[in-house]
């Protein structure tokens, strides 16, 4: 298993229905990756603005991304490839 840290700002298509944030697809390396499954979600409340983290499966790999509640930008944190 290879874990690569990315720390990139990315564009994400997400559903905010009912106050629940659900990432649906995101752009990485000029490709649109569709989220097949959300493995885990958690919130970081340590900072003034909440950050919502997601571990998702897309195209055979596990990606971790988060939404920064301060400026509402999405970030791709890391990818795990088996």
């Amino acid at each position: 298993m290879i874990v690569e840290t990315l720390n990139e700002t990315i564009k994400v298509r997400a559903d905010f229905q009912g106050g629940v944030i659900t990432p649906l697809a995101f752009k990485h390396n000029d490709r649109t990756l569709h989220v097949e499954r959300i493995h885990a979600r958690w919130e970081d409340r340590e900072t003034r603005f909440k950050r919502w983290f997601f571990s998702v499966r897309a195209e055979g790999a596990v990606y971790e991304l988060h939404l920064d509640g301060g400026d509402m930008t999405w970030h791709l944190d890391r990818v795990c490839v088996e």
Partner: protein
Amino acid sequence: MILHLDIDAFFASVEQLRNPALRGLPVIVGSGVIASCSYEARRFRLRAGMPLGKAKRLCPGVVILPGDSHIYEAFAQKVWDVCGRFTPDMETFLDDAYLELSGSERLRGTAEQIARNIKDAVGAGSGLSVTVGIATSRVIARMASAKGKPDGLTTVREGEERDFVRALPVKDLPGVGPATAGILRKVNVTTIGELAGLPPHALLDLLGRNGLALYERANGRDSMVIHRNEIPRSISRETTFRKDTIDPAEIEATLYYLVERAMKTARHLGLAARTVAVKIRYSDHEGDRASKTLPHHTDLDAEIFETARELLGRLHARRVSLHAVGMALSGLALSRTRERFLFDPLERTKLRRLYVALDDLRDRYGYAAVITGKSIELLRHLPRNSHDFVLRTPSLTK
């Protein structure tokens, strides 16, 4: 009734949730020693506290992860949020909690029903499994949950406490560590039942005041109540160095950084500290610890650091590299309600305002947005991510 809830193999379970490829594999989280291991790893006799080298020998295929305290705290908070829906009387620790159900049973059903609902809700909300013990006292509830691991539910009804603990080994009784167990073994006491049968004065002679507390617990009696997490007993931060070091600048900078982190947490909770403790561990695994109580409470980093530096100077007496350094604040009290700060000299008031402003900046832009004082030295030694310095082992202590 009191419910003790313990998150099963907490850190390792979170890692398996984050990356499902790890499910079914022996996974350990830790740096230097095991902080948490999955149940798959436990089949290879791996246990928390075991050095990683030994763990690799026992289980060559084990997956070792460094861990991330921010994520574990976030998952723990999810679990405590669920528990808070069932009762407000809750005392939480890193991966376990005590819940007072006495006021909730009329509203939400029997203790067992509440426990099942909590287990289901935690599983649905966080994906984590928890083990629950229910009893009339904290100690018995904790022992009941330890018996039911993993994913279990054990109830000890009123009047059944003595029978429940009687046959258990004495080391399972909270408060009995290896040293106490050794003393008891010398007088042929190996089970809690045997301990319960000793006269209290004999235990007082043998173990001091702790002996009387153990006598009560061994007989199924415990009067400790649930304390809501308003004032923690201590706030501690510790880390191992990326490479063992004897460089005083790096050691002091790391200590300064740990003090800053602990004090930020204290101010966030509205607390001031009176006692400072510092501990060090040498590269040959020898360690030492010292503490000092200040004449008054303070919430100022500079005052705490001066004391911490003095203690470090006293402790680091050998010409041997340090492997780890840590500090702790205790004697905590609410600073907002402490009238002593009302009459602080202007200089201290200004300093306090500065620290609060720094806390705000760091809350907003990440901890490493402002690097102050001796922490600047850490820029030469530690990598940074978008939020903070990346320590080798961030403290997992509340």
